């Protein structure tokens, strides 16, 4: 499963990822960094494509089977 993950130390909180996200899964938290709601994220990669710093990346996640 593909999900976006953000490096908060590198993020400049420009908000471009949040603007691009088609699922409104990203919000800028208190002007500090972009927060990705992985329950909404569909891993489309539009945020990664726009991010000027390369802090937000789409990564492959293993889904735990119960």
């Amino acid at each position, binding site marked *: 499963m593909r999900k976006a993950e953000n490096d908060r130390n*590198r993020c*400049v*909180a*420009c*908000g*471009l990822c*949040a*603007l*691009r*996200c*088609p699922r409104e899964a990203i919000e*800028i*938290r*208190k*002007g*500090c960094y972009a927060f990705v709601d992985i329950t909404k994220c569909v891993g489309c990669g539009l945020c990664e494509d*726009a*991010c*000027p*710093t*390369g*802090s937000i990346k789409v990564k492959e996640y293993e889904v735990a089977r119960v």
Partner: protein
Amino acid sequence: MKKGRKKHWYEYLWIWTIVYFALGFFNILFAWLGMIDFILPLIFAIVGGNKWFCNHMCGRGQLFWVLGRNMKCSRRKPSPKWIASKWFRYGFLAFFLTMFGTMVFQTYLVFSGAGTLRKAIKLFWTFKVPWQWAYNGSVFPDWVAQFGFGFYSLMLTSTLIGLIVMALYKERTWCSFCPMGTMTQGICKLKAGKTKPEA
């Protein structure tokens, strides 16, 4: 940017950036309007503790997107890592503020009568470009125009730097080290530090 939804008025603010530079070409006093772009983000950060200005209203960032993405003027390559590093961001902010201070001091010299009005703009803090057509006297004292020339130089230089990094790297690479962005994020972090943002 998302298709199929109504656009807000502030998504067209990239037009304002073009209008701003056009106005300053004809009359340098219009350069003062750029102070809006300085003061508004600070108000958002200090009062609201957010970067709403950067996120939604920055005409410059929008212009880089329109030129870089819509008009395909950007290589869209990832920028070097150091551009978004803390030392570079805060270093550039310090440099920018020093230059801003120098510009204010020059305005003060004209105000106090120790300096004379220079009808030129300085690009990249180095190259002097004659700009005398943009000012032929006004009801305001000379220092008002001097600040205009200085401020317009600052705005034009930073936009040119932004355009260069837009062409070379991602569209809005300027945002990674924009002094206003660094400053407002710093303020927001200080504010959030008191009330820790949840993980």
